[in-house]
C-alpha cells in the first residue's frame, strides 16, 4: 500500500470515527431520555398506589395489594421504584413496601442475583437485602465485600450497616485493609450501626496489619465510647508507625479517656514527637477534661510553637478554675492572650 493510500485510508477512518462519535453523543442523550421515559411510563399507572403505600396512607392495604398484583415488564420497573422509595422512608410504610417486594419474589431472587453477571444487578441485590433486613442473607452479603466491582463492595458495606448484625464487624474491618478494599468511611458508617457487640472486633482491628483497619477501629472506638479499646489505643498512640492511626487514637482517648490516659497524651506532646501529633494530643487533653493534665499543659504554654501554646492555653481554660489559674499564673505571651481572646468571644470566659 502506498503512502498516499495510507494517508487516504487513515483520513477516511478518522472522519468516520468522528461521525460515529457525534452520533454516539446524540444517541446517548436520546437513549437516556427514552429509557427514563419508558420506565416512568411503566411505573406511572401505579404511582398513586406507590405514594399511598410509601406515605402510610394505606390503612386497609388496598394499594399494597394493587402493587402486589402488578405483572409483566411493569413489575421489574416497579421493583426498582420500590427499592428507591424504601431507602427514603421508615416505619410502617417501609415495612409495607418491603412486603410488596417480598410478594414479588424480589427478595428471594436477591441472593441469587448476588452472583449475577451484571454489576448493577449485584449491587442492587445487596442493597435490597439490606433494606429488607434479610438477616439470613448475611453470609452472602459478607462475601460480596470481596466482589471484583467496587460498586458492589460499597453496596454490600451499606447493606451490612442496615442488617445490624455485630458478627459482620470482623469482615468489615478486614475488608477495609484488603487488596480489593472497601472504602473506610462507608465501612465506618456501617460499623457504627452494628451496636455495642463489636467491641472485641474493634480490639482485634487495632492490632491488624493494615493501617486503614487500625484507623477505622481507633475512630470507632472513640465515636462509640468503646472503653474496652483504651489500653490498645494507648499502645497505638505511643508506638504505631502510621501517623494517621496515632492521631486518631489521640482523638479517641480525648473523647473517652480517664485520668490514667493523661500520661500517654502528655507523652504525645513532648518535643521529639511530630508536630501534628503534639498539637492533637494537646487538644485531646482539653477534651478529656482531667485536672491532672494541668502541669503538663502549663509546660507547653511557653513552647516555641505558638500553635501548640495556644492549644494548651485553650485546653487549660476548658479545665475550669484550676486550668484558668495555671494560665493566669504563667508569664503571658501572644498565644495565651489569643486563647483568652477567643474564649471571651465564645462566651466561655467573662
Amino acid at each position, binding site marked *: 500500500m502506498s503512502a498516499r493510500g495510507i494517508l487516504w485510508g*487513515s483520513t477516511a477512518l478518522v472522519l468516520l470515527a468522528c461521525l460515529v462519535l457525534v452520533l454516539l*453523543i446524540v444517541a446517548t442523550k436520546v437513549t437516556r431520555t427514552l429509557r427514563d421515559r419508558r420506565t416512568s411510563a411503566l411505573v406511572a399507572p401505579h404511582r398513586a398506589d406507590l405514594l399511598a403505600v410509601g406515605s402510610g396512607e394505606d390503612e386497609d392495604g388496598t394499594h399494597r395489594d394493587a402493587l402486589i398484583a402488578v405483572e409483566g415488564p411493569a413489575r421489574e420497573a416497579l421493583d426498582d421504584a420500590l427499592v428507591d422509595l424504601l431507602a427514603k422512608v421508615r416505619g410502617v410504610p417501609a415495612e409495607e413496601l418491603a412486603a410488596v417486594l417480598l410478594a414479588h419474589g424480589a427478595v428471594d431472587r436477591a441472593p441469587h442475583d448476588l452472583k449475577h453477571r451484571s454489576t448493577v444487578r449485584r449491587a442492587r441485590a445487596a442493597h435490597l437485602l439490606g433494606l429488607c433486613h434479610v438477616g439470613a442473607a448475611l453470609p452472602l452479603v459478607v462475601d460480596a465485600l470481596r466482589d471484583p*466491582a467496587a460498586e458492589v463492595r460499597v453496596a454490600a458495606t451499606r447493606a451490612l450497616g442496615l442488617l445490624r448484625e455485630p458478627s459482620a464487624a470482623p469482615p468489615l474491618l478486614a475488608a477495609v485493609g484488603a487488596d480489593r478494599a472497601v*472504602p473506610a*468511611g462507608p465501612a465506618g458508617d456501617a460499623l457504627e450501626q452494628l451496636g455495642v457487640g463489636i467491641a472485641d472486633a474493634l480490639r482485634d482491628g487495632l492490632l491488624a496489619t493494615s493501617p*486503614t483497619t487500625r*484507623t477505622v477501629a481507633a475512630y470507632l472506638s472513640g465515636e462509640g465510647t468503646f472503653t474496652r479499646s483504651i489500653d490498645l489505643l494507648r499502645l497505638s498512640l505511643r508506638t504505631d508507625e502510621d501517623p494517621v492511626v496515632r492521631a486518631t487514637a489521640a482523638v479517641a482517648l480525648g473523647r473517652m479517656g480517664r485520668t490514667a490516659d493523661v500520661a500517654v497524651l502528655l507523652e504525645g506532646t513532648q518535643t521529639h514527637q511530630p508536630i501534628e501529633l503534639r498539637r492533637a494530643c494537646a487538644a485531646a487533653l482539653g477534651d478529656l477534661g482531667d485536672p491532672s493534665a494541668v502541669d503538663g499543659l502549663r509546660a507547653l504554654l511557653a513552647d516555641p510553637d505558638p500553635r501548640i501554646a*495556644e492549644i494548651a492555653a485553650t485546653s487549660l481554660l476548658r479545665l475550669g478554675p484550676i486550668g484558668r489559674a495555671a494560665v493566669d499564673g504563667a508569664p503571658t505571651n501572644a498565644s495565651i492572650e*489569643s486563647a483568652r481572646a477567643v474564649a471571651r468571644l465564645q462566651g466561655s470566659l467573662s
Partner: protein
Amino acid sequence: MSWDGLVDGLRSTVAWLMHITSTPILIYFTVINLSYLALIVLAFVDFRAQHRRREAIVETFGGALTPGVSLVVPAYNEEAGIVTAVQALLSLRYPRHEVVAVDDGSTDATFERLRDAFDLVPIPREIPQDVPTRARVIDVHVPRDGRTRLIVVRKENSGRSEAINVGVNAATEPLVTMVDADSILEPDALLRVTQPFVDDPNRMVAAGGAIRPVNGSRVVSGRIVKVQMPTSWLARIQVVEYLRAFLLGRTGWARFGALILISGAFGIFRRDVIVEVGGLDPDSIGEDFELVLRIHRRLRDEDRDYRVAFVPEPVLWTEVPSTTSVLRSQRRRWHRGLWETLWAYRGMLFRRRYGRVGFVALPYFWIFELFAPLLEMFGIIIVPLALALGVVNVPYGILFLVLAYGLAVLVTLSAMAAEEWAFHRHERWRDLGLSLAASVLENFGYRQLTVWWRLEGWWASLRRKKQVWGVMTRTGFDEAGG
C-alpha cells in the same frame, strides 16, 4: 541570485523538509491524540464504576472519618467580590470547615469590607511558621460572634504563593485547599472532593477537582443555579477545552496512577504533607503543578505508600478570559510555568524510583505538552508553504491537515460523549449543539493562536534566565499581565 533561483532553492529545501518530517509529524499527531483517547477510555471506565456511587455520596453528610478542611483564600485587591466569596465558602455544605482569608497587602478596601461584613475583631495570635515565609504577618482577625469559622490574616504584599503559605500556616484543619476569591465552589464540592480521603485516610495525600468556566451560567447568591454556555465563541471554545483537559485528561492519569497535574486552581492537600515539602515555592511560576511534583518526589524518595486522586465531577467554576489579550497572557504564563517546572524536576525523568511519574507522566508532558506547540508551529508553517511552492498537491495538503486536526476533533468529541454520558450537565439541546460547533471551530484559529502564545511564553522564559554555575537565576518578571 535570481528570484527563480531563490524560489527553486526554497522549494527543494521545503521538499526535503517535508520528506523527512511529514511522517514523523503525522506519527506525533497520531500518538498524541491516541494517547488522549487512551486516557479518555481510562476515565470512562472510572466514570462507569463511580457513576452510581456519586449520587449516594452527598447523602453521607458527616459520615465516619470525614476530615476537617481549611479553605485558604489568597486575596489581593478583591474588594468587589471578597465578601460574597467568603460568605459562599462559609456556607458550603460540610460538617467541619473554616475559611482562612489572607489579605496580601491589598491597597483597596478588601480588608475593610470583610471587617464590616463579618464584624471582625483583632486577636493577638501568632501564626506558626510551619511553612517558612518571608513576608511579615501584620495581624489576625476573627468574627466577634466567636462562632463563625473565619480567620482573616493580613500580611505584607509578596505574591499569591506566599499568601497561600501563610494561609496554610494559619489553618487549623488537617486538609487544606486553595480557592481564589473569584471562583465559585459547588455547595457540595467539599463533600465530593474529600471523598478520596474518606475512602483511604491513611494514604491519600492530595486530590484534585475539575474546573469549568462559569461564563454564561446563572449565578445567584454566589451559587450556580443554571449551567449555560457562554455567549462569546472564545469562552465557548474554552468550555470545550476545559472539558477535555480537566475532566478526562486528569481522570485518566489518576486511574493510571500517575496524576501529576492536579489543576490550575483547585487542589486539596493534606496539610502535614504541604508542610513537609515546604509549601508553595514563591519563586516558581508553576504553583500547584510544582507543588504536586515536589510531593511526588519527596514521598517516592522516602518510599512511602501514598495516593493522589482526581474527582472528575466539576467542583469549581471560574471566570475564563473573554478577551484575547487576557487569554494570551494566561497561556503564556501557563506554558512558562510548565517549562520551568519540568526543567526543575528533570532529575525525576526515567528513574525507577519515581515509577510511573518518572517513566510515563513526565516524559509524556515533555513530549506532548511542552514540545507540542513547537511541532504544531512547524506544521502550520511548512504545510502551507509546501502547498504554495507546489511541493505537495492540494489534496495531500488538505488530507494532512484533516488528519492532524481531525484527530483533535475526534478527541474532543470523545470527551463530550463521555461527559454527556456521565454528568449530562448541559441540559439544553442548544448548548450541546454549541459545544459540538465549538469543538470543530477550535481548530480554525483558536488553536493556532494558543500555539503561538505558548511559544511566546516559553521563549520569554528562556530569554530571561541566566545560567550561573548551574543554578537558574531570574532577572525578574512582570507578573501582572506577563
